[in-house]
């Protein structure tokens, strides 16, 4: 498996699968609710525990069929999760569930009064009872091994293909169930008698074995449990514990408590299945969303890159074309008898200036869109505005304008790249200063305000204003590159603002001049 594959797998198993993802608050609440329900079911029938109800072996058969299917499905889903994650503990748990489902089949077949009065497979009176003990022991033992194996080799996963591991697991389970069935039927004489007759046990013989096993399993899962799957498993174990306690309160089959324990058992068996199904479905949804978001992000990043590239190409093309023409002229000039030295000097000055201009454009692009500038952080827009303002103080003097900064309230937190947002501010302020140079306006206002869920920045000038017929096209690339004083222009501003999920626009100011606005979605608090 290559590095990317491993990374993908780790991502999948660590953050998405039920076997790794931590339980959510609502899942915890639901688990607590089920627990309370189970305890009620446990306590409620106690006063009537010896009440005998109708003897219905068919009930047992139906229940066994349902339990078989539920456990088989659970085992299959767990196997499926195992094939995704390669986690050995999951394989163990799946094996446990498979064992349970197979033992249930044997139990159903050997149950006296089920298919035949004595039970199939040459069963004795106590065969199904013994099988029930194995059945009950199966899950706690699997859970204990599950937790312990996870503790021992937390990082070690099996390597694919997993089919061999799964087939081995199934064959082992099959062999164990067959062996146990043979033991309780053919080898019946070897086992101590536990039944008075078909309807009554001598004493709750399984209690001293099963209850401690279950308590140990519950303790271990409780202590080591981290994932949503662990939570469901814990519930199941508790439910089985309750069912076991219930059934040990009576020695009679078909008593009220006996039926109650069966009901709790069914509920218990279904819990992990329900959990797995819910998780699998929501996982599928999450994955679909993730894929969609990924595609969307890729698209918008491509558009972003495209916009930056075309602006960069245009910006670099201008000085480069000028350099090329100047060099051609200089070449012609040097072939003359007496070259015009003054002209050549002029040409070289221009070439140097254009080269510096191209380098400046590149540096600006790098600063704005380089790796460090791409990093998204949560920052105070008001603070960035004040910083930019301070940086530009010298420029304000040079431009001979009076600038004013207003930041009511704040901090105004937004998410994104401070370097890029600063680039937008520098652009808008330079543009404003430039347009005032034409009209002789002197005042510039910069304001950062919070409006609803947005932080809005205004840059207002007393300049010549924007030709209203230009409209949105001032933000189009290539429209103008005239006399930019340290900025990459409005198209880049729009690219940046839109990459921050914001909006940029302008309005004519009431008396004279223009107000440029841009808004960014406000972020409430820094994410940790």
């Amino acid at each position, binding site marked *: 498996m290559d590095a990317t594959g491993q990374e993908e797998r780790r991502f999948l198993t660590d953050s998405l699968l039920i076997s790794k993802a931590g339980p959510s608050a609502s899942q915890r609440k639901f688990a607590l609710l089920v627990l309370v329900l189970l305890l009620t079911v446990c306590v409620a029938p106690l006063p009537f525990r010896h009440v005998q109800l109708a003897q219905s072996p068919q009930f047992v058969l139906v229940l066994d069929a349902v339990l078989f299917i539920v456990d088989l499905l659970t085992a299959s889903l767990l196997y499926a999760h195992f094939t995704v994650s390669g986690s050995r503990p999951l394989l163990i748990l799946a094996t446990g569930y498979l064992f349970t489902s197979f033992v249930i089949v044997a139990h159903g077949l050997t149950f006296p009064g089920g298919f035949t009065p004595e039970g199939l497979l040459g069963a004795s009176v106590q065969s199904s009872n013994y099988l029930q003990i194995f059945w009950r022991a199966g899950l706690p033992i699997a859970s204990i091994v599950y937790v312990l194996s996870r503790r021992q080799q937390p990082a070690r996963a099996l390597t694919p293909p997993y089919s061999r591991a799964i087939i081995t697991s199934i064959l082992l389970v099959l062999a164990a169930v067959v062996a146990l069935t043979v033991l309780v039927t053919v080898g019946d004489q070897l086992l101590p008698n536990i039944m008075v007759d078909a309807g009554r046990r001598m004493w709750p013989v399984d209690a001293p074995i099963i209850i401690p096993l279950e308590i140990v399993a519950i303790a271990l899962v409780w202590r080591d449990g981290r994932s949503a799957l662990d939570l469901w498993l814990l519930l199941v174990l508790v439910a089985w514990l309750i069912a076991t306690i219930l059934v040990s309160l009576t020695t009679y089959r078909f008593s009220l408590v006996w039926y109650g324990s069966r009901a709790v058992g069914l509920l218990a068996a279904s819990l992990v299945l329900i959990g797995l199904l819910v998780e699998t479905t929501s996982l599928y949804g999450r994955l679909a969303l993730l894929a969609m978001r990924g595609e969307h992000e890729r698209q918008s990043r491509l558009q972003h890159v495209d916009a930056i590239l*075309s602006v960069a*190409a*245009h910006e670099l*093309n*201008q*000085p*480069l*074309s*000028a*350099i*090329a*023409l*100047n060099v*051609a*002229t200089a070449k*012609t*000039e040097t072939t003359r008898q007496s070259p015009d030295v003054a*002209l050549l000097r*002029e*040409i070289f000055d*221009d070439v140097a*200036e*254009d080269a510096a*201009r191209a380098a400046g454009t590149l540096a600006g692009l790098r600063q704005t869109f380089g790796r460090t500038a791409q990093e998204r952080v949560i920052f105070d827009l008001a603070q960035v505005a004040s910083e930019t303002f301070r940086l530009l103080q010298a420029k304000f003097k040079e431009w001979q304008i009076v600038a004013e900064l207003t930041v009511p309230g704040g901090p105004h937190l937004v998410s994104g790249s401070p370097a890029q947002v600063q680039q937008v501010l520098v652009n808008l302020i330079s543009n404003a200063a430039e347009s005032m140079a034409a009209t002789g306006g002197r005042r510039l206002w910069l304001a950062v305000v919070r409006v609803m869920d947005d932080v809005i920045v205004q840059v207002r000038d007393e300049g010549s204003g924007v*030709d209203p017929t230009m409209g949105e096209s001032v933000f189009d*690339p*290539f*429209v*103008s*590159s*005239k*006399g930019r004083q340290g900025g990459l222009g409005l198209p880049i501003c729009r690219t940046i603002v839109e990459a921050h999920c914001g909006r940029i626009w302008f309005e004519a100011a009431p008396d004279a001049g223009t107000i440029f606005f841009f808004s960014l979605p406000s972020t409430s608090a820094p994410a940790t």
Partner: protein
Amino acid sequence: MSGPSFVYLVDDDISFLRALERFLRSKGYDCLAFASAEEFLAAHDPNQPGCAVIDLTMPGIDGMQLQNLLKRVGRPLLFVSGNGDLPIGVLAMKQGAVDFLTKPINENALLSAVDEALQRDLAARTDRQKHNHAVLKITSLTLRERQVFDLVVAGRLNKQIAHDLEISEKTVKLHRGRMMTKLGVRSVTDLVRLQEMLTP
């Protein structure tokens, strides 16, 4: 002819404008450089022979708008563009631009395009001059002479013209002789050529 040909340069990128002007000057062209379409239009004299090299994207009046304005005075022009936008290039050529060059500019392409534009301007100017000349001559004719002129050019014989105008053939010959002298032509072929020049 009113003086030498000029190459008008219009580009909002000052540095490129200067380089372009310097380059064309070194190749022996007389240039006039303008940083915007507005400045250019303020200084532009349609009677001055020459062509225009215009940046496609400029603030204010842009290259395409300027082309529409210049079409009316018949000034040949070529475009330089910072980005090779094919549809706009095609549109510009359809509307009569001599060439559509993208930056960085191929110097030879620029020179040959400027030459062609200047030639087109000269040819157009010569045509216009001939036309004006012809119009001037025609207007010197009397009404009768003009009628005879039209009929001769239409291929009618003297006898037919006399019948059409209801005058004697002798009088037709008289008008015809005077008309030919005024127009300074010797043959009917020359008359037809002159008539063609009347339609601009």
